[in-house]
């Protein structure tokens, strides 16, 4: 993984890498479970992404701060604990201040703990890099994930329910549009994910050759 090794990178380099060069979804193909699960309504996706960005940035920062004190043999336990700590915080905040959203997302917030991206960034970057680099890396990886999720969520909600963010859209909610219910059902997620990964990998051919070496 490109994040590991070498000197500290600039914010710009980290941003490009997190969002484009080493995007968690279409490059690293991590965190696919939540990509499939929460992308059938744009609002849920947005909240889920916000939760992930917060968790990923903060846990990367904390893991990096503790990296010299953490014994190597128990580092994964410590990482999981720190990730769970932030996820539970997000969950508590939602329950207390946005109960409707907490209901909508159900168990998915808790499942951020097992999102491979968080652990992936902890292992690949936060364990070896200084705190600031880890924070920025976590943030932009979260952003890269969020952008892809939105690209998948918008067509799913629009085609499947005829709405965006819960608001009925012209034409798609009208009588001329036969709603594609399958788009909001699990198969729709697989179609959209495959299309998105295909499209982005086609736009980015040089990387693929490097990876094949």
């Amino acid at each position, binding site marked *: 993984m490109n994040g590991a090794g070498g000197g500290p990178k600039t914010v710009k380099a980290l941003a490009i890498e997190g969002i484009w060069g080493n995007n968690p979804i279409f490059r690293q193909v991590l965190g696919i479970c939540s990509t499939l699960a929460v992308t*059938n309504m744009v609002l849920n996706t947005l909240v889920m992404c916000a939760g992930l960005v917060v968790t990923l940035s903060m846990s990367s920062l904390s893991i990096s701060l503790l990296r010299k004190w953490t014994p190597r043999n128990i580092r994964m336990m410590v990482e999981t*604990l720190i990730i769970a700590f932030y996820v539970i915080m997000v969950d*508590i905040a939602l*329950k*207390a201040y946005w109960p409707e959203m907490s209901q909508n997302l159900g168990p998915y917030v808790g499942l951020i703990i097992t999102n491979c991206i968080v652990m992936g960034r902890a292992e690949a970057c936060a364990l070896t890099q200084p705190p600031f680099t880890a924070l920025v890396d976590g943030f932009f990886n979260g952003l890269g994930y969020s952008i892809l999720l939105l690209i998948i969520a918008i067509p799913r909600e629009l085609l499947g329910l005829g709405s965006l963010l819960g608001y009925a859209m012209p034409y798609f909610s009208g009588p001329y549009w036969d709603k594609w*219910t*399958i788009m909001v059902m699990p198969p729709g997620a697989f179609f959209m994910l495959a299309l998105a990964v295909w499209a982005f990998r086609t736009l980015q051919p040089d990387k693929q050759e490097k990876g094949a070496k």
Partner: protein
Amino acid sequence: MTEKPPAKLRDRRAYPVFYMFAVTFVSTGVLIGLNRMTEDRVEANRQVLFEEAVLFALGWDAEEKMSPAGVHQAFLENVQEPAEESAGAYRLVRGGKLEAYALPFEGRGFWNQIKGVMGIRPDGSVLTGMAFYEQSETPGLGAEIVKTYFTDQFQELKLDAGSPALALKSSGAKSGENEVDAITGATQTCTRLEDILNNALDAWRKKMGLSKSGDDDAAAGKARGEG
């Protein structure tokens, strides 16, 4: 934290154990604190959600969305706690007159428990409304049961005297007065919901002595009544 811990400490065999213990202790402590701080708020949210469901099921017509305090106020003023003679149902009493029962129910949906409230007229034959306050069905599909386009169908729904009291039919297949349109693409949720509702209704009507279901006692009673 940017320096390594002293070698003396790091080389101790028990160091990882102490380290893990310390990290766990601190993070758990913070979370317990946070939980305590928001506990009342979470509980109040849950209570208001339930009260709102009760009012909605009773056909409460609020012009606009009520504030949490408004919901609580309206609930306290109009709804009476369940009692022996209402078989676990809340009662809407206005001007000393019993107008409707609000029966809380719950059962397993497709993913998890579905909890809700249904409003029933005193004679047990017509619903005043339906509301769900807890569910984790698939967003966009099963979770649509909370939307008003679905729950509004239960207002003034005539129940069948026998069992099942009501039915959820796929769109366009509705034939009886006691049927409502199910949600397309949420077959599992709807089938289970249908059972939950019918079971709750049957049990409640039996307890209330309003039962005219197909079981032997009731059938015998009905036969006697007719004879």
